[in-house]
């Protein structure tokens, strides 16, 4: 039997109030009730604010309802779904989103891991360096989007100004089709490289030192050590970070909205942004709902994958 006395003296603040009530009150009964009482408020809120809206969206997705036109919602079966899945417009957006997700997350992973690797090799100033590198990640997408819009301005933007003083030509970053998507990728990379770096750094510092010592006794080359010790040990954690970023990038909206507003043309319209246009500018609520449900399905699959890896990592 564990002695409860040391526990109470560990926390002097509680000594005064530690007059136990009379024993024998039924607590078996309490446990179940307590669990329900503690969990259900949170669950109810989630049901009301997340599940109910989604179910509503699911219902609307089978109708031709329009939020502005009003009037009754006519049931049209899978009409919205087939329209979306066969729409060339949607395919274009899917491709844009794919390029964006792969480009941005790929760049972030390489850069973030690189920076983390460099920091992990330093013995001094690690904390300061890490803190400095993390600043972009904590900023609101509004601040990030606005500010890069200013910096990338074709006329008075500081980026073009610097290019000019280097003797290079001016680039219309946000107003040319190709460069706009590239700008979006660059800005997202700027903001989220710290995220990958942070997690990679945690993985790198967790690699036991003795493995490297053993390897250096064996005269293993730097590259060999990296390939056979560092990478395999950090990879599982890095994968979590990459998946997490991929989900976030897939549902990205605010940065597009602020930085390019989907333009020029439709060159930077991601799926999220397209849904917004269908729902709030086209007022096709039914179609937008079906579109949204399809996106939610993708997110659920990705989240499932993410949690699988997470569980594996925790158990392994």
């Amino acid at each position, binding site marked *: 039997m564990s002695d409860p006395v040391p526990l109470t003296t560990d926390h002097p603040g509680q000594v005064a109030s530690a007059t136990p009530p009379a024993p024998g009150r039924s607590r078996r009964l309490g446990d179940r009730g307590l*669990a329900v009482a503690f969990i259900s408020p949170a669950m109810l*809120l989630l049901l009301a604010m997340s599940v109910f809206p989604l179910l509503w969206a699911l219902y609307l997705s089978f109708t031709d309802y329009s939020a502005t036109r009003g009037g009754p919602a006519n049931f049209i079966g899978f009409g919205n779904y087939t329209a979306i899945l066969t729409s060339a417009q949607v395919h274009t957006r899917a491709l844009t989103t794919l390029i964006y997700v792969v480009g941005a997350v790929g760049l972030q992973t390489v850069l973030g891991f690189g920076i983390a690797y460099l920091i992990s090799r*330093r013995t001094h100033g690690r904390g300061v360096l890490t803190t*400095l590198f993390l600043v972009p990640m904590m900023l609101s997408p509004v601040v990030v989007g606005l500010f890069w819009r200013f910096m990338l301005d074709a006329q008075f933007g500081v980026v073009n100004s610097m290019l000019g003083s280097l003797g290079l030509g001016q680039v219309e970053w946000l107003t040319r089709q190709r460069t706009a998507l590239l700008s979006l990728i660059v800005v997202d990379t700027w903001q989220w490289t710290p995220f990958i770096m942070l997690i990679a750094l945690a993985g790198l510092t967790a690699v036991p030192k003795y493995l490297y010592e053993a390897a250096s006794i064996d005269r293993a080359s730097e590259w060999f050590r990296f390939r056979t010790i560092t990478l395999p040990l950090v990879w599982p954690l890095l994968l979590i970070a990459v998946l997490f970023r991929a989900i976030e990038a897939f549902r990205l*909206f605010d940065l597009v909205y602020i930085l390019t507003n989907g333009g020029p043309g439709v060159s930077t319209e991601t799926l999220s942004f397209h849904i917004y246009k269908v729902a709030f500018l086209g007022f096709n609520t039914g179609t937008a709902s079906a579109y949204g449900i399809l996106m*939610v399905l993708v997110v659920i699959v990705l989240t499932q994958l993410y949690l699988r890896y997470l569980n594996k990592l925790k158990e392994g």
Partner: protein
Amino acid sequence: MAVSVDEAVSTGPARDHTPPARRLGGRGRSVLEVALLTVLAVVMLFPVLWMIETSIKENRDVYAIPAKFFDFKVTLDHYKDVFVAPDGGRSALSVSFLNSVVVAGASTVLATVLGVPAAWAYSRFAVKAKKDQLFFILSTRFMPPVVVVVPIFLMYRQVGLIDNKLGLILIYTAFNVPFTIWMMKGFVDEVPAEYEDAAMLDGYTRLQAFRRFTLPLLVPGIAATAVFALIFSWNEFVFATFLTSSDSVRTAPPAIAGLIGGTTTDWGLVAAASVVFALPVLVFAYLVRKHLIAGVTLGAVRR
């Protein structure tokens, strides 16, 4: 001993006979790495510095071509404009900052009150289908905001919560509760359940044991979790921009975003507003830096 190992494994004699050169190479490499890190840090921080610099520049210098890096006149006019309207009263921006404080604060308190007990229950009790429930909870957090905002918009229109602070508070709470539960579950798991068992042997009920012994130990974790929830709500843009419209309700992110558009944009004002908006976040993030990994992965990864 080490020597014999070296000799046995060394691939070529050339390496062994040139230790000074190798050491120099090592130092050269170290210098290179530091230089590389410095360049990367400058690139990462430049936009932030440029934002701060723009916020204290006179308008003429803000639009100077080529850009002025050092020789500009310092002014605090933009910061004054953030808080004071041209007619001397409160500016719309400062009202939006206050709204942000109210909305982010209230939703954080609500999410903490709802989330912490739930996290404790998930950690301590054998709840049915616990894994599925936790998965469900986290997946609500991953929903694309744009998708959720359409039905929420219709729902709020029915009950009159459009352009209402309470509406924003509710939706932010719903988005912060999953995070709070996941993050706090990690903290509760770290407190041995034996503490409560021991207290219950002493005659306390389970609830009393939780309140008197576990809860005090959770306070630092609760504080860190609340700070992250606060940052998430503070930075949120999508719901804020679609669910509110009037100046008296709007939070800071859509208000700042509203500064652009129109024919000209006062970038000095945008920069100053952004600095004022971002400063508390950076301070708070610095306070919880120890828990940053758990925080930014929604409590999923912790080291």
